[in-house]
């Protein structure tokens, strides 16, 4: 446990002293805030059936490919460039613990940004309570559902970022790879949104869906989460995805030292 905490602390420290993360966070939160304000202004003219808070979650989800690479690209790519991975592995620490520590730090940073973005609806509720209540910002189930959804997907997104960082020595390449993988992932969700499934292979599809991690129907699940309906299968398959990419990263780290 101790080596994990040491790595976690060091990685958080490294993220906080890195200017790139501040720049990325600033632009991300600014754009998200602007978009959210625009959405609230035009909300009454749209046929949006979900709670307005879900628009923020969608903003976070679709904005992730632009944010997560800045958080994760440094973790292993920089170690590989400097050659410090060997020095790190000479200390009494297991490679999975190292990967877990680095992922946790990135994930924690992502959660901080998520929390900051959730301040927007909170501010609306505090400053304009009447409008805030009308928009459903006082409903705890909306906050919990939306928060949990982004918590789960943030975990798998950061694990993909960590994996991408371990396959190259170049931070930029790691960043671009993360962006590409996340864009493909989100595109799959967007393209398959609203598509009906055939009854004949519905059962098989369900098994794959549970196992592989809602690759196809993430946005469909968001509909449930945003009204406070928690889907246990999403918990399971996102955890599978996180573990899968963390194990892949561990294999890669071990391979690098061979």
């Amino acid at each position, binding site marked *: 446990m101790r080596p994990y905490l*040491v790595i976690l602390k060091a990685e958080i420290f490294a993220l906080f002293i890195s200017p790139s993360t501040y720049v990325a966070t600033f632009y991300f939160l600014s754009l998200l805030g602007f978009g959210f304000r625009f959405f609230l202004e035009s909300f009454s003219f749209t046929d949006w059936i979900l709670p307005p808070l879900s628009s923020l979650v969608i903003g976070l989800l679709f904005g992730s490919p632009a944010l997560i690479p800045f958080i994760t690209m440094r973790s292993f790519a920089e170690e590989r460039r400097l050659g410090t991975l*060997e020095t790190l592995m000479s200390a009494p620490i297991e490679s999975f613990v190292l990967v877990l520590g680095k992922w946790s730090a990135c994930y924690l940073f992502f959660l901080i940004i998520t929390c900051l973005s959730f301040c927007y609806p909170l501010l609306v509720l505090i400053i304009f309570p009447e409008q805030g209540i009308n928009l459903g910002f006082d409903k705890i189930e909306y906050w919990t559902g939306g928060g949990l959804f982004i918590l789960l997907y943030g975990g798998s997104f950061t694990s993909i970022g960590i994996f991408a960082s371990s396959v190259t020595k170049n931070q930029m390449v790691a960043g671009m790879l993360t962006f590409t993988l996340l864009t493909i992932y989100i595109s799959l969700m967007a393209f398959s949104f609203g598509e009906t499934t055939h009854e004949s292979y519905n059962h098989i599809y369900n098994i794959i869906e549970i196992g592989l991690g809602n690759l196809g129907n993430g946005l469909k699940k968001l509909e449930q989460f945003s009204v406070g309906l928690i889907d246990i299968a999403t918990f399971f398959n996102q955890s599978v995805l996180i573990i899968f990419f963390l194990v892949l990263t561990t294999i890669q780290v071990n391979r690098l*030292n061979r």
Partner: protein
Amino acid sequence: MKVENKPMPIIEVINLKKAYGNINALKGISFSIGKGEIVGFLGPNGAGKSTTLRILSGIIPADSGEAKVCGVDLAEEEGQVRNHIGYLAENNPLPEDLRVIEYLKFRANLKGLQGSRLRERIKIVLDVCDLERKVSERKIGNLSKGYRQRVGIADSLLAEPRLIILDEPTIGLDPRQSAITRKMMERLRGEVSFLLSSHILSEVEACCDRMLILSHGQIVAEGTLYELQKKFIKNTIFQVVAVGKKIELQKKIRSIDSSCELIEDDPVEISGKRRFTFSTSKGESIAEEIIRSLLELNELHVSEFQITRPDLETIFLRATKENWEEKDITARKKAKKTKNHTPTGL
């Protein structure tokens, strides 16, 4: 009957093998290192030095063979060994954004040091490695090569390891900085065992108790400098500085030792004296006898007499040359065999 309890060696390696694809980096090496010993690991580039050190540090696994470090079997508890050793990697990679003190705190934490013990150990290693306060506050990226090397060594000393493995510790250091590294090892001599690889032979000669010479993944020589001198240099070389005729001197020496041969005859500046270099196969025992007889000859005016011992460089070249030659012969035999087996065309 008295039973002698032999202390357990810090490193015990038996028939260790490692291959990278088709390349056999280690072809079954065996050696052991005792407590408090400083052992130099020598060998040409690609001999397998770094591979051996990385295996012993628990960073990479061996393909086969047995290796025990501080009593820990590497095959069974690879990670466990890292609790007992300090390791300085080749080229000493360090994070550039951190300050020296921050880096040492991070490493100490990672090695399980806490609270007052952590502070005390950092203070001690900064002192041992001559990293004054001003340097410890600087960013590693802004440090000179020498200081960076010292930071790496300080890191390896942090957890009071029983064994310190240093891969090229003095590479790129100026003589003063190399001397500081030597001084550090001298301070810890007896308490900690050192295994260091180096290309700087004078460095190894100056501070190591014993040497291991590796070539093509095999140990080609092992022992103290004296043992290696005896093993690889069969003839004893001695020099005589005298005024007089070469023939007379030669005659006198030959009368004592008929195998003795004159190798060189050089003038010594403008003094009129000459430096005669002889080689004998009868060893150093004959030297005493020769000098006694030369002193009897008044016309020779012998002013200097010394036995020159071959340095480590000579031994290193001799030991690795033998291995190169063996490899060459094997390769030629193999080529010849292949040629003979190749079917002739129509």
